[in-house]
């Protein structure tokens, strides 16, 4: 009964039963069914058609970790000036949970001046002089809310739709739904220009999906991707020869054994080889036009938000589907004035330059840029002798501001509003899941149909929630 090896090898060689037919069949399957087939022959990152016509093809998500104060940047509350230093009536706060402050805290006005800008008349803090110049491309949402009031769960909720680690993040969902168009780069890249992030790797985790959908951190120092560089003493030529020998041995094995997984491995090594060239090339911003560098405020070799933004643009040019740019330390429990000044100096120019640059290159029309943190900050002052804090603001999940620009976004508008103190939303509440539903929609994905089966349930990025923010879509 033993199969004749010669026959089998002959069959694979001569009859050319390659992956072609089988792979094609797999790729034609709809996104929510194919990933669960047990077949190992599928390329899980092959580009796939969206559910409907997409307005954006890729996303650059500028994640302001720590939660910036909307009251000092976007949501102007002149009334706070009047009540500055007076206690908030107990009745307003009675059911709210806060991380650090007491229910008898006083209100604190923003130390910054606000002005209207552009044709749209968007009102911005003086701390955002650069963003002020591009407001007509930007849609502000002043009525975002979340249900988490601690950093890690709130960040993970914003990224994965669940406050508990273990669920796939937005970038994973997008690559799962659309595949990757990057030939020799990962489809989901994570950049970080600040300190460590509260939610850690859960923020770009693929959760229960296969690891091909995991966000790949590109590092500012050393190898942009872990283990990208050949070991010392292995030069380009030796690397090529090594991979050639490897391919020969693997191919031989494939002919012997016929397991399609082997061919997939051969491809992985070739992709890794190409990545070794393309990744260092893409992170090297020194060949950018000096004017462009100046516009972002970027300096080659530095770890900065400006460098992240320019790199994000380079990555979208190369077909990377989803890029997370993290910039942390917006958690201004004390001295919100000094904190905002510092952070805006680091981020305002580059974020605005990104919009301008993408626009000039014709990329803004199908690249979605999202800016936001994990929650907002209180209109009440945070002062704590125990923690040595003064003139800060505590976590405020009830209302905060985010903005979006580019692919499919109707710029020059402001959506939603909060009450006179900035305490509660008065108009058009937008939950985190609504933001996620809208981002998927702009990419041509129906957030209710993009599901992944796990533990007996069809999981979604938006859990069982999510309503589109219709008015933001152009």
């Amino acid at each position, binding site marked *: 009964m033993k199969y004749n090896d010669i026959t089998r090898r002959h069959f694979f060689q001569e009859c050319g039963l390659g992956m072609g037919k089988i792979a094609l069949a797999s790729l034609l399957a709809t996104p929510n069914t194919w990933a669960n087939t047990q077949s190992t022959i599928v390329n899980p990152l092959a580009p796939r058609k969206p559910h409907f016509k997409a307005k954006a093809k890729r996303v650059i998500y500028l994640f302001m970790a720590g939660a910036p104060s909307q009251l000092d940047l976007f949501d102007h509350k002149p009334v706070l000036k009047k009540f500055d230093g007076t206690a908030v009536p107990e009745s307003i706060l009675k059911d709210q949970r806060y991380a650090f402050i007491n229910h008898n805290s006083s209100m604190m006005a923003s130390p910054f001046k606000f002005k209207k800008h552009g044709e749209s008349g968007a009102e911005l803090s003086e701390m955002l002089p650069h963003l002020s110049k591009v407001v007509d491309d930007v849609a502000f949402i002043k009525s975002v809310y979340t249900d988490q009031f*601690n950093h890690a769960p709130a960040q993970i909720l914003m990224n994965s739709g669940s406050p508990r680690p273990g669920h796939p993040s937005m970038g994973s969902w997008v690559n799962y739904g659309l595949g990757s168009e990057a030939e020799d780069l990962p489809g989901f890249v994570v950049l970080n220009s600040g300190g460590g992030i509260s939610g850690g790797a859960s923020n770009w985790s693929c959760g229960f999906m296969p690891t091909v959908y995991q966000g790949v951190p590109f590092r500012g120092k050393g190898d942009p991707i872990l283990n990208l560089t050949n070991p010392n003493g292995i030069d380009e030529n030796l690397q090529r020869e090594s991979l050639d*020998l490897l391919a020969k041995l693997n191919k031989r094995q494939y002919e012997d054994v*016929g397991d399609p997984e082997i061919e997939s491995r051969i491809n992985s090594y070739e992709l890794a080889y190409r990545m070794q060239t393309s990744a260092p090339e893409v992170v090297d911003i020194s060949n950018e036009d000096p004017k462009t560098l100046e516009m972002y405020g970027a300096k080659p070799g530095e770890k900065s938000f400006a460098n992240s933004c320019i790199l994000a643009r380079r990555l979208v040019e190369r077909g990377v589907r989803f890029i997370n740019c993290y910039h942390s330390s917006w958690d201004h429990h004390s001295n919100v004035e000094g904190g905002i000044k510092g952070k805006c100096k680091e981020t305002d120019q580059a974020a605005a330059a990104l919009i301008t640059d993408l626009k000039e290159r014709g990329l803004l029309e199908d690249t979605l840029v999202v800016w936001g943190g994990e929650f907002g900050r209180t209109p009440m002052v945070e002062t704590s002798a125990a923690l040595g804090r003064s003139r800060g603001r505590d976590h405020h999940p009830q209302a905060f501001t985010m903005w979006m620009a580019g692919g499919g976004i109707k710029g020059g508008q402001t959506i939603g509003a909060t009450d006179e103190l900035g305490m509660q939303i008065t108009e058009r509440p937008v939950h985190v899941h609504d933001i996620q539903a809208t981002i998927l929609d702009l990419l041509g994905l129906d957030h209710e149909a993009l599901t992944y089966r796990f533990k*007996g349930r069809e999981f979604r990025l938006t859990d069982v929630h999510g309503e589109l923010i219709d008015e933001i879509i152009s």
Partner: protein
Amino acid sequence: MNYHIYMSNTQRFSYSKYLMLAGILCTSITANAQSLSERAQGILAQHCFGCHGAEKQKGGLRLDNEKDALWGGDSAEASYIPGKSKQSILIQKIIESNPQKRMPAGKPALSAKDIKTLTDWVDQGATWTKVAVQEKSKGPSHWSFISPTKIDAPELPKNFPVINPIDAFIGEKIKAQGLTPMSEADRTTLVRRVYLETIGLPPTPKQTQDFVNDKWPGAYKRLLNRLFKSPHYGERQAQQWLDIARFADTNGYEKDKPRSIWPYRDWVIDAYNNNMPYDQFVIEQLAGDLLPTPSNSQIIATGFHRNTMLNEEGGIDAAEDWFKRSVDRTNTTGAAFLGLTVGCAQCHTHKSDPITRTEYYRLFAFFNNAQEDNYLLPDADIKAKRSHAADLIEKSKDWTVFLAKQNDKAQAEYAKWLSEVTPKASDWIVHPPTSIHSRKDTPLKTLDDHSVLAYGDVPNDDTYTLEFEVGGELSAIRLEVLPHESLHFGGPGRGNLLADGDFLLSGFEAHIVDESGEATPISIASATHDYAAENRSAQKSLDGLSDTGWSINGQVGKAHRAAYQLEKPVRISSTSTLKLVLHQDYIHQHTIGRLRIATTMRDDLAEALKVPAHIETALFNGAKRSDSDQALIERHFYSEHSKELEKWRTRREKIHKEQPSYTSTLVMAKRIPERITHVHNRGEFQSPKQVVDSGVPKVLHDFPEGAEGTRLDLAHWLVSRDNPLLARVTMNRLWQQVFGKGLVVTSEDFGIEGEAPSHPELLDWLAIEFMDSGWDLQYMHRLMLMSSTFRRQSEVTPQILEKDPNNTYLARGPRLRLDAEVIRDLALSTSGLLVPDIGGPSVFPPQPAGANSLAYGTPAWPTSKGDDRYRRGIYTYIKRTAPYPGATVFDAPTREESCLRRQRTNTPLQALTLLNDEVYMEAMRNLAKAIQQMDGNVEEKTNHLYMLMMSRAPESDEIAHIEQFFTTQHEHFSKNDSAARKLLGLKKDEGNEATSEWAAWTALCRVILNTDEVITRS
């Protein structure tokens, strides 16, 4: 009306071992029919029940049971006509071309496969095999809720290799599928396969040869005997369970602080090595602490449910995080022991499985009613050393007094101190409280010394109200805060977030309560303390602010005192009481763990002294002091205050610090008093509804009558012979480990939405055999490995690829990429670097620079030196927010939640890891050195390399490729000495004539390590 139909399980016949062929056909037809109707109803459940189920009936239509489906919706037209798919509305609706009219409404069309299943189902008569959720009271009908029944293995034609019943069940389906089973793999393949499966290490060339050359019958069995006895068996077998147990070395979330729970990991390894019966394995992990006189190991086992994450971020709500941990425990229990996705019922009654939300919270109550504890592992050696150190300290106090008495300066110092402190000593009278109350319902109890101890859950903040019968005059109140072994870091505070063992007393009030219950405040003039952290004096507890107060950070673990001086003395009559209110309003669980109240009456200030209460009492006695009091005071002064003896105190501190500490591990304990569990609306912590008792889902077997509802009862219920799931779920996961995927592919879901078993009779047979064997895991593992099914060649023939691309029917042997840990172990063991020590604290092998630079606080990775650098992958430190990249890249889970089934992917990042990671380069350099130094030509050396890495000799074409590569690279390195030295990590002056050869072998070994064959169990 009971209209559901029991299918094959009740129709099965008990066939004799030598049954007729007709019998085989009969069972397989039944199984197929069952599978179709189950699939069809699975599709309906998934796509239709949302609008046409128990909760909603759009258009009046309900499709979750036969009666309603046939009755139809508002139009009263049957939704299908059995046998006639074309005339059935259900089918017409799902194939409708107009998306506006198509069902499911507003959703993409069903897949062609699903449409075909439903059409076939209707055409074949639309049999219902299960009742919907609402019918559960009438008894279960889903296959996995019915106890397994054992039928004898079918008999197969002679040309089917049958070693044990597994092969017969498997063979039956192979035959039915028209497949041909592959023959047994050759011995070199087999030996490598079985080594990797049992101990997770490849055989050495000698071990391979021994097996290949063992020509006596029973060679394979003897091989298994050797491997099952290996201490590495437990290491490999524990891997899957540690994924399920979500074992990790850190707490997760933002702070992601380290935790000590590795003894639990070692417990799992030991359990597998000792072949602990599986029922015991379950009981000890869920409730080892509740067993009568539990052993250390039974207590350690309860670490299973301590592997949940813990959020220690600033400002967290401790009660909410506890809720989340209990949810995780409930869900993990459901998945691990029942294969059920009970977690779905956290927010609402399970959409497909018969588990209600109330039942979820009854299950939850078992874990809600537990207490987290930190267990110090008893260790005679450490105990002896610690008691020796304590003795040393105590005895040296005598010596100190003796020394001091020879020292005039010390004597003078003492006299001065005594004259100063004596008048300050007050006559404090300790009062037992007559009533105690906590705003957060913290349990408080009075100890024999009249102190009050808090236990149970630690709330974020609290207020204690205590009343005392003083019956006399007082001018001051003393608050003692005292350490206690039950408190974090010994207390006196309960803080475990940010500052361990500390508290913050933000406010202190005193009142007189008269007979009528009316309270009159007593004004307090000032407060003193013996010690306070910077800016946190006792005086701050009187400033009316809620975030300032008295705290003792920096001197945790010791008793401290604050004294509150009244504005003017007050008299409290025998009918009135003194009421004290202790505000601890600051966040972060900074509440007091143990306290004691005393009052005094004197004309001047009653200060909080820097001496313990009993010394102050001795001091107060003044002239009337007894000799023993005198000695006590002297001893206290010299050992605690004397400047002359500072050096001695430093030495004492050193002894104290250097004494070894016990290893601690996280465990579960019984909670007293019991915690009340509510049903939570929408699964939200902040929406508690009705109160529930602990209990189990009705759809499963009964909870024993008279059981109290403890975790131990739950554990006994789980391992009951009546449990239809535990044995099946466990055998399925073992099968998954051995064959790459379970007989039920969705090993985490045996519910209605899960996949149906590919071989239901085999699964039941295994489950029953497992229980009959006394839950003997090794016996079952051995059965699987002995089977001819396991031993088959793994080549993917065109016939198999076409007919069974996923190898569901196992006509060929499994071919699986190795797990992350095994890939590491293989590289280390073949290169001779592996340090095969078993157990101990987790280790930090090298990882690429910057691998955890994105985690909060950019934690350091203290790369292990020496032996710990080369330990097996199972011992690598698991940091949840920055998991070891070499592990996650090969699909190791991050252990944030229970993982019952690892993915197996194939990515370029894996290629980069194996090609470039220092762990692998170091191993390959070492391997290359050994190869280069051995005798023989390139061919002989290649032969050895292949035997090490693949357990087989290379074939001639492989040797040709390798020789060519080797020659080229040898030449290259001969010309590029510096490249060779760089590759080998040699300094300029190191190296010799063999360097280039070593470098060439290194380059070659690197290639071989990366071959598919090496990282695959074929």
